[in-house]
């Protein structure tokens, strides 16, 4: 059971502070800090290893659904129910810019590699790319080929990948100007990239995680056991790409083996729906966020 030994299953810290459901918790790029956002319309910056709440970012008018921080930790972007994308300065806590344009709630947001573009996924069935460099508040690209709400977005150096409730994971390749649409047949809740960039993990609303090969679109594996029927639940791969982890609506966290899809471990982590999981980029450490208002830090 060496495999499961490396899984973070011990609760190291509980980050309390959010009033109401926490909708997303994300490590920063080096894993020293984490950001969370929730229904209380705030974004919070934590040190998960010491369990310290560092800063609160308030400006959103409605719940904050997703947050992402630049690799250099200088800027934040967040989105939520107020249909806007907020571009923050981390240190001052001020909003640098607000990007308006989505016609509905914005479900997910990501910076690109150079932190020059924010790509947002919205309930209005579109992905929008916003330019952080220029002062224009207009989106520089609107991708509206989705047929339903776009739930999640991932960026590579050259691609934009979006997962939508219409059951597709669409990859937009900027180098060749092609759109690849992988239809999974089930509403896609969340997508996550493997660390090697070859696979994409899609969480579907039929309580199944699906691992796709990005180059061929082939379904590599399905992971079942958890409950995911109505909430946006995050999933991710561990830092070694050996396991897949995800939350469940009953408060459990599940670990699957990447290859044989067996449930390696599952335990009750929260009293309520686990909305978000984020795995440390280097260490065996994980944070989970839940509707019960807490963020828990898990270590081996």
């Amino acid at each position, binding site marked *: 059971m060496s495999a499961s030994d490396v899984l973070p299953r011990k609760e190291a810290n509980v980050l309390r502070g959010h009033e109401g*459901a926490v*909708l997303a918790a994300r490590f920063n790029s080096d894993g020293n800090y984490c950001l969370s956002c929730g*229904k209380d319309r705030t974004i919070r910056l934590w040190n998960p290893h010491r369990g310290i709440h560092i800063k609160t970012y308030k400006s959103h008018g409605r719940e904050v*659904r997703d947050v992402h921080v630049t690799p250099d930790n200088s800027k934040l972007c967040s989105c939520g129910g107020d249909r806007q994308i907020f571009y923050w300065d981390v240190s001052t806590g001020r909003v640098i810019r607000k990007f308006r344009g989505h016609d509905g709630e914005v479900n997910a947001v990501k910076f*690109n*590699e*150079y932190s*020059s*573009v924010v790509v947002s996924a919205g309930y209005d069935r579109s992905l929008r*790319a916003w*330019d952080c*460099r*220029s002062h224009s508040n207009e989106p*520089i*690209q609107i*991708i509206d*080929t989705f047929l339903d709400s776009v739930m999640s977005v991932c960026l590579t*150096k*050259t691609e934009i990948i979006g997962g939508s*409730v219409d*059951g597709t*994971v669409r990859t*937009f*390749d*900027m*180098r*060749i*100007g*092609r*759109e*690849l*649409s*992988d*239809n*999974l*047949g*089930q*509403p896609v809740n969340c997508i996550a990239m493997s660390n090697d960039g070859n696979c994409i993990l899609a969480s579907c*609303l*039929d309580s199944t995680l*699906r691992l*796709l090969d990005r180059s*061929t*679109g*082939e*379904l590599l594996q399905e992971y079942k056991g958890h*409950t995911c*029927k*109505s*909430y*946006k639940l995050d999933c991710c791969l561990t830092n070694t790409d050996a396991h897949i982890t995800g939350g469940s*609506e009953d408060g459990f966290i599940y670990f699957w083996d990447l290859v044989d899809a067996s449930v390696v471990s599952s335990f009750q982590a929260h009293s*309520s*729906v686990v*909305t978000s999981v984020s795995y440390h980029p280097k260490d065996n450490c994980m944070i989970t966020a839940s*509707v*019960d208002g807490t963020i828990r830090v898990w270590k081996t």
Partner: protein
Amino acid sequence: MDSDGDDYVFYGTPIEREEEISSRKKKAVAKSSGHLRSLPVWKQEVTDEEGRRRFHGAFTGGFSAGYYNTVGSEKGWAPQSFVSSRKNRAEVKQQSILNFLDEDEKAELDGQSLGTSMQFDTFGFTAAELARKQAEKEQQQRPSAIPGPVPDEIILPVTESIGVKLLLKMGWRHGHSIKDSNANSQYDARREARKAFLAFSSDDAKLQLAESEPVKCNIENSTEQPANDDVLSYESTPVYVLNPKQDLHGLGFDPYKHAPEFREKKRSRICGKEPGNRKAYMAKDNLFGFKSGNVAPGFGIGALEELDAEDEDVYASGLDLVDTYVQEVEEPSRLITDSKQKLVAKEHGVLPGFRVASNSEQQLERFDAPVIPKDFVPHHKFPGPLETNYKLADSPPQEVLPPEDNNLKLLIEGVATLVARCGKLFEDLSREKNQSNPLFNFLTGGNGHDYYTRKLWEERQKRNSQSKQQLDGKLSLSTQRMTAESRGKILGERPLDRSTKDLGSSVASAEVIQLQFNLSDTFTKPASFSGLPEVMKPFEDDPVKQERFEQFLKAKYQGGLRSTDSSGASNMSEAARAHERLDFEAAAEAIQKGQWGKESKFSPQQFVDFSANGGMQFTSGGLEQVKDSEADDLVMKKMFPKREECQWRPSPVLCKRFDLIDPYMGKPPPAPRMRSKIDTLIFTSDSVKSTKVEETPTANRDSHPTPQFDVQGIRQDVSSKEIEVEVEVENVERPVDLYKAIFSDDSDDEGESISLNKVEDPGKKIEAATTTLNRLIAGDFLESLGKELGLEVPPEMPYPTNKAQIPASQKEGVDTDAGDANILPVQNKPSSTPISRTRVDHEQPHDQEIAQDGRSGKTEFIHGNSDRTGSIYMETSSSGKKFDKVNPEKLAQEHKKARTPSGRHQNWNDSSSSEDERSRSKLSGKYRHRSSGSDSDSSIDHRDRHHSRSKGRKKESSREKSSSSRRHSKHHKRRSRDSPSRSRHESRREHGEAKRERRKKRD
């Protein structure tokens, strides 16, 4: 000194007469005052005090010209005696404008300066200020008990404004009304007198006098006035009452505009401080109009004016009797209004003029719903369509032995069957008919009656069960037909997971059903909930509450609009209701939790919306999966994931931000989708999706290849027509050598020239258009060339030209992105350029060296993927580029290899090459292709040189687009007359030479 100045010479100045002087003075004054100022500077005249013109300057002026208007004296400036300010430096010298003015200026200024004067201190501010200063000064001198300036600032000396002073002088005293109390003639006279007095009293000197005057006036004029004044004196000046806006009307909205009688009513209600007497009075007034007699008609009260206090007072005394009378009458109403005022606090919704009953006996009395017995099943059994069913419930008659007489038995049985089938009417009929017949005695209670009844019952039973079965069958059918589930099942939809899914059907099967019942069930659903809330009775101790809870649950689960609260809850207070609501929700949640574990048939979905934690929810009820069977899974796995691929155009900025090269750089923006018939046929816009799977030559979806195919197709069509014409003309074989002579020189540097062009202008969008234009021109050129040579060349088709634009433009885009400054011959953009050109490469051996520098990659691709009919645009553009860079030589080899089996290409060319393809079948393919190649070549040459002309052509070509084939002959003629074609041709040649030179240099 103008006209007559020439004739006469005058010495000295003429003596002027007195009146002249005075008139001049006047004039001067008038002038200087206004007129002069309006004149421009050079027209203004300077005059002295006496109005004489004064001259300035040594030549025109008199002795005084030197210093007037300039310096102070004849001697010039008089310096001020110097005063040292050293000693009295502290003394602040207030400078004013007067310090800097000369005397005369001061004099001028005297009358004009503005200042305040104490006389017109209307509001007394200045006086107050002065007084305050004065007091301050005094304060400084004497010690104050309270230190500091506080009391001085607080306590100001009282001064009265001039207005107050005037009023006081007029006899007004503090606290009195200023308003004239009466409007009668006497008072008017008095007012006139006052006015006169005012006029007088403005003069200070007469002040004393004036003060005594009004007294006299008063005494003289108003003998009856004192009485009035007395009345007035009671009336203190009304304190200015701010009318707070207490209603919810918008600004300026007057709800009483058309019903002014309610206005007073409301006012009285709001401020109940007026004496009751008057209020009731006024209320009456207003309610019954102004003609009530309380107010004398025609006296000052207009329709829009409000009733004034004074006005009423005046007449109050006179109409005392009436008043009291009214009062008596109004007494009860006053009571009512009083009581109403009390009520107003409680009940706001009462209309003015109506009152709320003091006792609440009229309130709706609510009765509790009748208690339903516990065993009551809320099913109503409707009487069946047949009478027979009615009797079903009867206890079956005794089993009776059949009568011995076999005939009788048969008869009885027959009759019973008939009766059972036809109803009781038959029995009655037969009884009547066979009254006399002893055989039928059993009907009337005779022999065998018992058996008959028994038999009848049996028959009915039988029939009933039959009909029931029939009905059952029908019902099951109909239900299946009716429910969405079954429909969904048929259609392969996933059934919705409903909690009450099979409740209805189970009930249906359990009970004896009749159609009516079934119908009623579908509409009212009485039973569907009897099952549900059984499990959850959290409020059993309070049946009413339990009922409401069930109602609540029903509303919850049933979905749709929330039903209005049950009647029982309606007499609860809002707070209580809210509280109860919370209770219910909690209970529902608890129940849900309890059930979650036990019963899987209640999906969590239903309860999700109660749970207080509201994460992000998706209303995915419809999408929820019922456990799929293995087969379904298999199907799913087979079906999904399904990959599709289509074109997507990233914006240039996005590519820039991602630090990528825009794959569509230099390409024109996607054409706006055209709606006209032809256009939709021909163009498929870039954004049209295409799936790789569907990439067949016929598929119109793939954006890039299709235009090409379309072009070809249509060209083919059109050219096939042309061919017929041509064939007639072309019985003379074209001299091959001639063509060779024309084209061979170009064929060498064809690729070069094109690449040159490309190098010159990568990324220019205009180029795309111009190339196509040039191709048009080239067509023209070919045509005219043919003319010159005495050959008939079919005129350029509107369709092909039209089409040519698209591939060309695409080609341009490929050029620019594929080879960033890589020299790639145009011929090697096979997928987008007309394919005939690619073939040029293959068939021209002397092109090989050009082929080496990379275009081979592209052509290779064409061959490799040609089974896909060259539709893979993406690969050619992207990976073709790679190939170019990576391994040109190898690819070149491949290219050579691939060159041989180019039959397919030939086919393409047959179909695609334009107008002259078929007709010139006698010509060798080589030349043919050369010609087409050179035609594009020449076009590109022209792009450089004849830009402007090509623009002119553009218009023409666009005209051509619209023109139908009918016009061709005309067109043709016009073309033949076109002389510039020749010059073009020549210039092309020159250009070709120039290029060759250039190429040599580079080599």
